[in-house]
């Protein structure tokens, strides 16, 4: 394939990737978008395979078969509730792949047209070492994120004295190593960079609490994009550069959206330690001296059956309990009674962006019954029942009233304005932010203490026997 033709093919692949993300602007076009992405990937791979210096295909085919089989099996088996872990695991692979590609380029620079071993162009060395370092950070960082999310290690932040100083020192050391490497170009230095970057990746993620992992994952996603860009410059491949920039922007924007949704600065998240004193913050609210109104599944069924409209507010607890199917069944029964049912999704409900939407979609809830905060928040005032299931922080009015609260300034769903608020959760314990929810003690609140799934099933039964 001539160089010009392959340049056009890579451009075509880039456009496909842009269209893939563009498709996600609406659920209607999203599947088409994914197809674009697949087409782009096929074009990019075939174009590379047709390059004059790609001669032996058996090993490549073997690699793609092994990798493809593993990927397919994982993708088909994974539970939708395990999405955050899955994304973290996949990211770690991209990071590691970037490291290996950079290593290959370092050992065989001629294949990439960037010089000969021992005399690689300086620009390429710079790009390569940045790509490698970011790749290695992404690798170990994502591994830690995965382990925390999967529960392999405790999600609690690991903090120790001098942590930030150590990280800063290692960061400086890294810069020194890169400069040295660009001058010396030694193999030992290359692997030293990989090793050091790996350690840094580990150290910058351990102080961050398990629940902050989604921000971290997005951040690592963004990093891996910029690493791809760096390697794209080395390989003089526009498809890599464009894709890297897309992925880099996407990760950065998602982190930004999450931080804004939590009303925390990015640095606050990255510097870590949040959630370390959960236990301390929780009881501080004091739940002994206030009274809560507790209800049963029958009470809930009765209240909702007599309502005209119900808004369901799902949260992290729904995901944990895998209650989405039972919840949808409950909603169907209510709708059959002529009650208007809609779902309100807070931008940071659950543990990753769009988490609730995917789970509801999995349970066959049509997406036009599911609304974003801005679309539905005004409707709570004219709604009879807000059914809050496994959500907590995203409904807590202290975010509006108490400037001392860690969630102060975060936009919340105004469930308090509806006629009755039903809270499904197992206890009075606080949510992710560790802040007591004042709504629990309001007169128009009824607590339904149980696992979210069990409670939904009980309400379904109660509704059936009414």
């Amino acid at each position, binding site marked *: 394939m001539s160089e010009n033709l392959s340049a056009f093919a890579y451009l075509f692949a880039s456009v496909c990737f*842009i269209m893939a*993300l*563009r498709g996600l602007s609406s*659920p209607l076009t999203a599947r088409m978008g*994914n197809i674009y*992405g697949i087409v*782009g*990937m096929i074009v990019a*791979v075939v174009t590379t395979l047709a*390059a004059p*210096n*790609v001669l*032996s295909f058996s*090993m*490549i085919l*073997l*690699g793609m078969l092994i*990798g*493809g089989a593993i*990927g*397919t099996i*994982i993708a088909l088996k994974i539970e939708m509730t395990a999405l955050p872990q899955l994304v973290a695991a*996949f990211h770690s*692979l*991209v990071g*590691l*792949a970037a490291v*290996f*590609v950079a*290593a*290959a*380029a370092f*050992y*065989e620079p001629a*294949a990439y047209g960037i010089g000969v071993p021992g005399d690689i162009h300086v620009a390429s060395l710079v790009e390569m070492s940045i790509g490698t370092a970011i790749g290695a950070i992404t690798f170990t960082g994502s591994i830690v994120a995965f382990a925390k999310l999967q529960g392999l290690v405790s999600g609690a932040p690991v903090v120790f004295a001098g942590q930030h100083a150590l990280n800063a020192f290692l960061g400086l050391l890294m810069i020194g190593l890169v400069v040295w490497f660009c001058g010396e170009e030694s193999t030992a230095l290359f692997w030293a960079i990989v090793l050091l970057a790996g350690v840094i990746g580990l150290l910058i993620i351990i102080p961050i609490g398990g629940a902050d992992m989604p921000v971290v*994952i997005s951040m690592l996603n963004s990093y*891996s994009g910029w690493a*791809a*860009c760096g390697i794209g410059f080395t390989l003089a*491949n*526009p*498809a*890599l550069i*464009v894709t*890297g920039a897309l992925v880099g*922007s*996407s990760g950065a*924007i*998602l982190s930004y959206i999450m931080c804004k949704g939590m009303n925390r600065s990015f640095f606050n998240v990255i510097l870590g330690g949040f959630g370390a004193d959960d236990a301390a913050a929780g009881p501080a609210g004091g739940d002994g001296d206030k009274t809560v109104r507790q209800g049963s599944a029958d009470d809930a069924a009765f209240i909702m059956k007599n309502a005209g409209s119900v808004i369901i507010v799902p949260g992290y607890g729904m995901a944990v309990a895998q209650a989405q199917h039972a919840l949808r069944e409950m909603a169907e029964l209510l709708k059959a009674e002529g009650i208007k049912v809609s779902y309100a*999704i807070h931008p940071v409900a659950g543990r*990753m962006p*769009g*988490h609730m*939407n*995917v789970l509801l*979609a999995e349970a*066959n809830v*049509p997406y*036009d019954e*599911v609304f974003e905060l801005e679309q539905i928040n005004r409707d709570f005032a004219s709604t009879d029942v807000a059914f809050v299931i496994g959500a907590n922080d995203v409904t807590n009015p202290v975010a509006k009233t108490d400037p001392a609260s860690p969630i102060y300034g975060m936009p919340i769903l105004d469930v308090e304005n509806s006629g009755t608020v039903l809270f499904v959760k197992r206890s009075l314990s606080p949510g992710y932010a560790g802040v007591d929810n004042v709504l629990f003690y309001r007169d128009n609140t009824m607590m339904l203490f149980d696992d979210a799934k069990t409670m939904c099933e009980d309400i379904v039964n109660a509704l059936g026997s009414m």
Partner: protein
Amino acid sequence: MATDKIVEQATGLAEGAKSLAENAEALAAQVSQLSVQASGGTDVFVFYFTIFVLACFVGYYVVWSVTPALHSPLMSVTNAISSVIIVGALIAAGPDDMSFSKVFGFIAVVLASVNIFGGFIVSQRMLSMFKKKK
């Protein structure tokens, strides 16, 4: 006569040398011109940098236009497409003869393939769940 012949030959040689020198000069001129023409005098890096800057703008806009309900699929789709790094792996794994580089390339092909297949399939699974009200 012998002298004449030798002089003639010498003259011929001198002329040959002259024309060669001219050729060489022309070639040198061509060299400099070509290197200007081929890229208009600009390093390719500048082109790639321009592409990079524009791609950042496209990325910014295209991601902001993603509906919040699809932010989870966005994560898995970007994850899948970032595996386009496989093109680097293929080049490394491409040569006929075995080398460190080829082994690294092979490993990278495996890793990236896991991601490509895994990422696109999981995205498709997620997206196929999003249905409109019947």
